[in-house]
């Protein structure tokens, strides 16, 4: 994953084939939490944020082919999040018309309180990457025996010493090294399936 987000070709190309259910499933699993959090940060309640996710993905599903066909298309994530922003603003405006709220305009406040665009994009990039790791971890975890997984997690994530972990898991230290590398290799592979063969740096 590079510092500037690129269009994620492998998954995106597959998204444009309506029959590729798997691609949509992965896409939703990775992106829905991001859109959800974006909405929650903007003050949407749980149920409204969930609703908004649905709207955003329906809109994206309709528009993605057209977007993909455009020669001058930019990166994917900013495009998706722009859809999300537009829908949020529309939804707040609609609600305001309905309630005729007193005091400051929610929609204006939302716009004014928006963090600077590039600051938010950076935040979204970090969150996207994080989400990708969490997602991949969940996807591959069941492929490993519990001890193998824990050898990875306790040393690689919790940062504990292999010797200590080996003792706890009744493994040899060498087995802990192998185990954690196996999990890491699989994680990388899973992420690359989605992200295309770029990897960090």
């Amino acid at each position, binding site marked *: 994953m590079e510092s500037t987000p690129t269009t994620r070709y492998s998954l995106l190309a597959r998204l444009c084939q309506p029959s590729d259910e798997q691609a949509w499933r992965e896409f939703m699993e990775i992106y829905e939490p991001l859109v959800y959090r974006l909405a929650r940060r903007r003050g949407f309640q749980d149920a409204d944020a969930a609703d908004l996710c649905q709207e955003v993905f329906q809109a994206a599903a309709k528009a993605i082919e057209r977007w993909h066909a455009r020669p001058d298309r930019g990166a994917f994530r900013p495009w998706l999040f722009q859809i999300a922003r537009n829908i949020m603003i529309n939804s707040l405006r609609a609600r305001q018309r309905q309630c005729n709220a007193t005091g400051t305009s929610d929609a204006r406040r939302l716009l004014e309180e928006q963090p600077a665009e590039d600051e938010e994009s950076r935040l979204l990039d970090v969150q996207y990457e994080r*989400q990708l790791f969490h997602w991949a971890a969940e996807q591959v975890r069941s492929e490993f025996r519990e001890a193998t997984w824990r050898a990875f997690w306790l040393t690689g994530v919790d940062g504990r010493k292999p010797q200590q972990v080996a003792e706890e898991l009744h493994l040899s230290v060498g087995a802990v*090294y192998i185990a954690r590398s196996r999990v890491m290799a699989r994680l990388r592979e899973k992420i690359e399936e989605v992200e295309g063969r770029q*990897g960090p740096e």
Partner: protein
Amino acid sequence: MVSPRFSCDLARLQLALDDRLREDAHQDLASHLEQCGECREQLESLAAGRDWWRKAQSHLATVEDGLPGRLTNTGRPGRPSSEGAFDDARPDQQPWLGFLAPSDDGAFIGRLGGYQVSDVIGSGGFGVVLKAFDAALNRFVAVKVLAPHLAASGAARRRFAREAQAAAAVVHEHVVAIHAVAENDGLPYLVMPYIAGCSLQERLDRQGPLELKEILRIGMQVAAGLAAAHAQGLVHRDIKPANILLENGVERVKITDFGLARTIDDASLTQSGVVAGTPQYMAPEQARGEPADHRSDLFSLGSVLYTMATGRSPFRAETFLGVWRRLCEDMPRPIRETNPEIPDWFAEIVETLHAKDPAERFQSAEEVSDLLSRHLAHLQQPALAPRPARLRRARWRRAMRLLRRGALIAAPAVVCLAAAVHWWPPSETTHQRAEGQPVAVDSREQPRDSDHEWQRPIAGWNQIDREVAETDHAITEVEQQLQRPAASVISPQTISAQAIDAEADAVERRWAEGVP
């Protein structure tokens, strides 16, 4: 010091990563790695670059935002199972149980109001369900607590209270009762009887498809429970196997979690346009965000019956969007393709429940419960209980609709037409046309787009389909004639609706006898 039995070998490291080393080779490599730092580094960079390791650590160690995840995958995946969500549910280890007061009895994990909490039964979108002991009444109860982060929102608290009120109004042996609704430190909770057993979902996960008798027994009871709720004006809106409890020991089924149920006339929350419910078991009108009524529950019941018969839910796609598309556009794969032991009549019941148009489903839960119980009675005592008539409701409806149009227009109308042309003054003709009165056809009976759903070939229907098509064609011709000015003077009152119904019934009987 390098083990003499083993030389540093890149290919072997790759085999280890792919988990393709034999057990003894794996052990050799493991002991080699303990001594050879170079190979350790090789192995790790073969697995992933340094940056990957760094990112894996920082990302996986971080739990996002503290916001509740919508999906399970926002949860921290690396949690060892010994610390799994509910295995060791002590408030000090489970910060989200912090709302419990300490219990003076060591056998319990905490206290909530007058209840001693012994266990966490589960958690859902709205909060946690605890098993607790009600000392005053000396019984175990299930306590459903609104999640603390939701209790902070007035809308969620109101919805929770509404859920409790709505559910408490339904008293029925197949609906989980509500003992009490209370609040503790701003956290609302409701108290229900503790039911020892499992959910239908758990049963299906464990056992796969159920036997026909069992399916009918469960389906019949769920439908009966729904009928009771519907009688109170309450739509469940989230009927699914996880919300159907199977009590241990007694063969009794109870519907629980009216978590999303609302009284039909309560429009305040639908203002926000929230699509509530589990997409997989939702009715298409719910998925589209249109108002749900009791017939939406019947669609979901159809999906539950389908799942019991095949072991899998009918509209599987796992993404919201995929399910949404299938719900709104597809008919599920025929049950008998997955489970040939399921009889036709059962598949037809499910198909009728699965009609995209609510008007083409059964119109009441009572009707479904009754039908399922009569089938069950026949299966159990074939000699005493007759098998209910075959169901062709949806197709019949469609056929009848056309026939009625036919009967209405073709037979008597032609006679009237002749008379009318002669006797009615032309001025009245134009007057009636200006009002845009339809020609003796109830607007509800107009053909709908969803008609094509029922046109999948089913054995025995080809002939009827042909007949219907022919009738349709004939009617269209007559209609075209009727469109001419002089013809529209025939008012609906001219022809008795009862006579038409009688005619249609007669045709229905003739067909039923003639078709295998």
